């Protein structure tokens, strides 16, 4: 449906995107993750036409988004703060979007506002940060566009509202549409995303369906018999998440490594549930202080 082909973008002499390629399939929720400054927002802005790519292209159904602006009726971007709509009331925003997006679902929007207990007659600027995000996410979802991009939708949203918001996002995906979410809240993406894309140094280095990720990457708690950590841990495809004495929590990416581990002198090998945060810590070269 939406194809991003080798997109490059330089801002202020800094190469922010250096060959992003991505394919967004209908009926999926895609989590876009990466550390600060890796270009997540720049990528979304480039996809929707706010920025022009220096190289590469963004295609929706084989139509170049940057050459045919009308195709953006099917691509909506909701930024992390709806500053442009601050002067409007919530109702006026819905009217405006109704005029712009042909499939805008006013009923869905009003229902969402009721669900979040947001006053439709009040100006956007009078809402709190969290309420603004609830409102703008619902507004974006109500466009019924085929690709909806949400930049940090849960930013500032309280725990109860977050639960409703995530439910709303999940309900909004249809077999014909997809939602791309950029978020630092990896445990949320863990719950709702079908696919994760890791952006590193302006490139989409890794793309996984969460199902594949969980079946191929293993999180293990291992206790070695010897005091000294064995050489097995030094391998490239082994990532030590944590070490407490002789107890290591590791991530491994191949079945073969698991086989070699079993040949080691171990007291315990226990498989733990893999979280997105574990994998992210590994792949972004971090220490768990992620996104």
């Amino acid at each position: 449906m939406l194809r991003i082909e080798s997109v490059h973008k330089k801002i202020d002499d800094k190469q922010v995107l250096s060959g992003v390629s991505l394919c967004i399939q209908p009926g999926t929720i895609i989590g876009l993750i990466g550390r600060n400054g890796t270009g997540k927002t720049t990528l979304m802005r480039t996809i929707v036409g706010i920025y022009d790519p220096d190289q590469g292209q963004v295609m929706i159904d084989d139509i170049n988004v940057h050459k045919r602006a009308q195709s953006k009726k099917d691509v909506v971007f909701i930024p992390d703060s709806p500053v442009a709509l601050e002067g409007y009331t919530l109702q006026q925003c819905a009217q405006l979007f109704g005029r712009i997006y042909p499939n805008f679902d006013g009923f869905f929007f009003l229902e969402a506002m009721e669900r979040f207990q947001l006053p439709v007659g009040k100006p956007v600027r009078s809402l709190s940060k969290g309420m603004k995000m609830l409102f703008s996410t619902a507004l974006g979802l109500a466009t019924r566009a085929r690709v909806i991009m949400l930049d940090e939708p849960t930013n500032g949203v309280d725990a109860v509202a977050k639960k409703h918001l995530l439910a709303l996002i999940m309900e909004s995906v249809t077999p014909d549409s997809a939602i791309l979410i950029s978020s630092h809240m990896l445990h949320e993406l863990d719950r709702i995303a079908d696919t994760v894309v890791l952006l590193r140094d302006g490139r989409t280095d890794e793309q996984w369906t969460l199902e594949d990720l969980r079946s191929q990457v293993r999180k293990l708690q291992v206790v070695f018999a010897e005091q000294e950590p064995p050489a097995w841990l030094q391998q490239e495809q082994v990532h030590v998440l944590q070490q407490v004495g002789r107890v290591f929590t590791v991530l491994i990416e191949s079945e073969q490594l698991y086989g070699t581990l079993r040949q080691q002198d171990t007291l315990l090998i226990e498989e733990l549930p893999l979280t997105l945060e574990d994998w992210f810590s590994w792949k972004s070269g971090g220490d768990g202080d992620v996104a």
Partner: protein
Amino acid sequence: MWLRWFPSGLWAKELRQVRLMMWAMLVMGLFVLPIPHMNKWMLDSSDRVEDALIFIQEHGMYYNEYSLISLRIILCLLAAILAIWQLGFERRSGIQEFTFSLPYSRLHIFTTKFLVGMSFITMAVLVNVVIDVVVLYNTVAEPYVQWDHYTNNVVVCLLVVYSAYAVSLFIGTISGSWVSQLVFSFIMLLLPYFLVLQFRKLISAFSIFHDSYYQIENLLPDTNQWLNGYHGNYSWFNLLLLTVLAFAGGLYAYSRSRAENNGKLVIFPVWETVLKIGFTLCVALLGGSFCYESIYQGRIGYTIGFLVAGLIGYVLIRTLSRMKIKL
């Protein structure tokens, strides 16, 4: 077809964004055209009205009573503010990002902005002129109004404000912030005078081309004549041409707008180069003439002032052009 070129969503957004300016133009126009006429011919004491009538019976009506100069100037000013609001403020408040994300091409967006501005100007001029005509028609001065001249001045007023608006909008398409748009608009008005003055000093300092500065002056556009020329001998064609060229330039620049450079002085590298050269040259000319006038007369004084000021100007503009202003 109609909907394609006039999409209600885009028009609604653009109109809402600057609707206050429409009221400002209408109301300010009232204060400079129909209300002064009403005061003079309807509300003033009968003695004074009679005196004024005797005067125009003997000398004819004052030209400035129907030249619409005040309306022209006030609307030019408001049109420049409108252009700043449409482009400069949009860059500042994140509205441009929203606008660019909408399913409309940039050509379409810019054309809509331009048409909104032109509609405001047309409406402000026509509404005020109609009220003014009604006022004049109902005064004792009516037989002395030269309606053919009046009509000509209405057209000139429209064309002058159109061109000023189009130029302001063009400046907005290359400026990176509302501050730089404001500054560049102001500089554009003063630059011809400044250049004439500085070239005069340059010629004087180097004692060459003694008779040439008048020729140079003639070559430069007379902005005074453009915006508030007193006599109605304007070329409609030139004003229209200026409007069309500024619109075309704006359209070209806006379609290539680089939102990532918002906040900078200018958003295109090529214009940044032009700005650097232009600014350095202007500061150098200013420094040269200052040194020549105040410190050391002669070519050496001028040259030293020119070089030192040029260097300072270059460093200054290089620093400024690297900054992103967020006001």
